[in-house]
């Protein structure tokens, strides 16, 4: 056992901690961004530090440091205990944790190509090729980006857990901004906000078909400048897998976080309409809606071997055949509601306390082909790739926009439309789903930037979906 971990745990126990855990994390990150043929970001970041979480007098305390000596382990544990003692001044009841199986394990993550073994000049050369493909008159900004990280984490607790885990992440994306001097239009591939991410090596970048799609998004951005705006009114919507990721994230992932539900995030992110009496008792969506939280997928960005409480990764249903049946939880919140811990506690760094985070929140695929979904629409839109998003603090009223849309008339795809937006009330919207595309369209998108908590934590999560069809949705919004 690392000296800093051992001395921190011993000190915490000696000073009265009834529970303590330590996370020691070593991480390397590489980021590259190329804009209009110029390298804007070429950087590596290395960090090493540890955080100590304790329960003393029935209340929580946490402190962290970048100095990983044994002596600092004792100092940090002592401060965490002092903080916990102060927390107990307002205690209403003791913090209690649901019992779990305790593991000692070491999990490495095999990848085909270590992303850090590929020299930066090779990566830049590839991005320059992409940049060239996106070049055309009217394109004002061409962006390509890559991100790689490698983390080694040790989790140890007074309960005897000792888990070492490796995590390797690769991600990339391209984007263009087109302008005619009056407006701008954006197209991204595979997705906006940095592209796609997975727990894979450099092979993931090679699998993404960035070059094959660069000219397409360039031409679509230019075409969007000339197309007519998205129509306004009630109509059917077919939403592509990338926008579905955002829909799942905002209207399923966040409202099923049990800390939100119990008011623990009210200060910042808000609460949730999915209150405990609705569990197993609320028609969240139509019978076609089956949504899982799956941390067991070997490649999904929201997956992991164990969470930051030492709970082994699980796959559970959040919504089954339309009924709301599960929460993302922690050991403490699951104790409060008498549930089984499902392993969703994660911190984004050694210096942050774990909170409940999404894993991979996936809408299970259905049986339809895209053609079948389209053929069932008399008047509607096919839309994809998120551009704007907003949802109320209980996760009911949402309004989202996408980069691109196509009108559907009498079961056939028509012209492209720009600035598509749609809005609704979460459960009414999911109840209107009447068809999901089959597995051939299913994609798990890695989202690297889910923000939550105070202090703010930015977490890697993911969302799997195929195409999905919703009936009678509010489309377009007037603001003038």
């Amino acid at each position: 056992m690392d000296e800093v971990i051992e001395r921190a745990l011993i000190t915490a126990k000696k000073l009265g901690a009834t529970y303590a855990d330590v996370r020691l994390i070593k991480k390397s990150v590489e980021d590259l961004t190329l804009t209009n043929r110029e390298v804007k970001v070429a950087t590596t970041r290395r960090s090493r530090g540890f955080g100590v979480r304790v329960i003393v007098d029935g209340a929580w305390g946490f402190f962290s440091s970048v100095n990983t000596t044994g002596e600092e382990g004792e100092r940090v544990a002592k401060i965490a205990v002092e903080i916990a003692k102060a927390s107990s001044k307002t205690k209403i009841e003791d913090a209690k944790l649901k019992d779990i199986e305790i593991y000692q394990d070491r999990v490495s993550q095999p990848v085909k190509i270590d992303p850090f073994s590929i020299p930066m000049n090779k990566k830049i050369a590839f991005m320059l090729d992409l940049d060239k493909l996106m070049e055309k008159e009217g394109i004002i900004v061409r962006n390509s980006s890559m991100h790689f990280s490698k983390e080694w984490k040790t989790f140890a607790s007074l309960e005897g857990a000792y888990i070492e885990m490796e995590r390797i992440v690769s991600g990339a994306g391209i984007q263009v901004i087109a302008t005619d001097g009056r407006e701008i239009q954006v197209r991204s591939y595979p997705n906006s906000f940095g592209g796609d991410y997975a727990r894979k090596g450099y092979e993931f970048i090679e699998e993404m078909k960035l070059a094959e799609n660069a000219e397409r998004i360039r031409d679509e951005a230019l075409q969007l400048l000339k197309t007519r705006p998205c129509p306004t009114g009630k109509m059917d919507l077919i939403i592509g897998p990338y926008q579905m990721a955002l829909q799942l994230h905002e209207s399923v992932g966040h409202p099923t976080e049990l800390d939100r539900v119990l008011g623990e995030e009210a200060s910042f992110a808000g609460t949730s309409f999915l209150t405990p009496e609705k569990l197993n008792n609320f028609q969240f969506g139509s019978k076609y809606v089956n949504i899982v939280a799956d941390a067991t997928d070997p490649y999904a960005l929201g997956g992991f071997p164990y969470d930051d409480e030492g709970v082994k990764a699980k796959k559970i249903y959040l919504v089954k055949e339309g009924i709301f049946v599960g929460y993302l939880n922690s050991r403490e919140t699951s104790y409060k509601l008498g549930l089984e811990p499902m392993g969703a506690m994660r911190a984004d760094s050694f210096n942050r306390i774990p909170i409940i985070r999404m894993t991979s929140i996936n809408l299970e695929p259905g049986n339809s082909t895209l053609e079948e979904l389209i053929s069932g629409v008399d008047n509607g839109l096919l839309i994809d790739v998120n551009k704007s998003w907003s949802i109320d603090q209980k996760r009911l009223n949402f309004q989202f926009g996408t980069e691109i849309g196509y009108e559907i008339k009498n079961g056939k795809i028509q012209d492209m439309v720009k600035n598509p937006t749609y809005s609704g009330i979460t459960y009414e919207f999911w109840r209107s789903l009447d068809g999901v595309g089959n597995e051939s369209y299913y994609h798990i998108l890695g989202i690297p930037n889910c923000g939550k908590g105070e202090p703010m934590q930015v977490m890697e999560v993911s969302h799997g979906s195929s195409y999905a069809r919703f009936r009678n949705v509010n489309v377009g919004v007037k603001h003038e």
Partner: protein
Amino acid sequence: MNKENMLEVVNKAVSLSKADQVEALLVGGESYLTGFANNYIHRNVGEETYDLSIRVVIGKKVASASTTDLSYESIKSCVDTAETLCKFQKDNEEFVSLPKEDGGEKYFEEVYELPDAETRAEIVKKIVNASKKHGLISSGKFEVERSQIAIKNSLGIERYEERTVATLKNIAMGDTSSGFSQESAMSFKDINVDKVIEESLDTALKGRSPSSIEPSKYEVILSPYAVTEFLSSMKYLSLTEKNIEEGTSFMKGHFGEKMFNDMITFYDDGLDNNTIKMAFDFEGMKKKRVYFVKNGVIENVVNDSFYAYKLGKEPTGHSLPQPSELGAYPMNFIFEKGKSKLEDMISNVEKGLFVQRFWYTNPMDPVNLVITGMTRDGLFLIENGKITRPIKHLRFTESIITALKNCLEISDNFKIIYEGGAVTTVPYMRIKDFNFSSATEF
């Protein structure tokens, strides 16, 4: 770490590099956050963290590396990594130079005592006890930090800044309503705890049993919290040289044009008396006052040294830690106050809405700054010059440009709001024809 330790690290880093130009930036300090929810402290955390970034320039090539390990071996390795990355790089033809000495103050220190865990808990206890007394539930944070920045570059820049900031926030919640208050100051002793309690509890109590209203255009009075959230997208879409280049800024092509009425003036100034002060940016450049809009006329934008030198201008002192996707950012945004008393502004509304706070705003149309978001923690109907009843929350979809053109009155007081290192100082605003596009259930 103290000032001498911090400066020693950045000087050491610069001395270890053989690159044409080198910059070392060490950012860190200690911070503590006592978070509370359901009337008790549920998340009480602290950290002491330092992060060293090295930026090197070889010819026209630029690269960077960073580390949290400040041992000699690690600093040396970080410098070597940055230089290796730089050699692999492609020339950046637009890059001119790292920042040059601008004669600004070398050191800025405004540091006050940080409250210990016990003191923070006592202040939280006062808040939750007040909430309990009124049958409400409090959630919020008491966050204190001592932040330090040391910068050294091979062109002669050496800077050190140390400051403290404390923020107290409370959301008081009842069964059908909530109320919000937040206050920040450089010394925690300057925070008026009673005022935070009064504003949040008063809003929650007055907001009980809200009724529905049709989403439509309403005259609004926006509190400083609502104004801050409403304008937040403008800060990263419109107010920098990068925004002008990328075409997202509504100011592009309109400099010198009178776009708004005389009362609209907003600027950035790190040393204004009405902000939480910051003397220089993360490249060590002196923070200058930059007017974005002055008396309704489009004036200027902020920059970092990359854009300044590329465009043949002087740096304005608004760089974020480099490399940064945003480049520059207005860290000390100030909307100039007006002449109206809040009471008079309310009495001037025949029918309208008082908005305590907006939430989850995002741009739908960057160039026209069309923003959507929700109201939160207090929405009230104003009828015949008086606040008459609470209203269930609404979604707005409105252009910042249109709203500023429709501004009728600005209050004679403002509030300093601090979030994540950035400071926004804004007044109450009365705006006509503000568009609400849909409603929610609570």
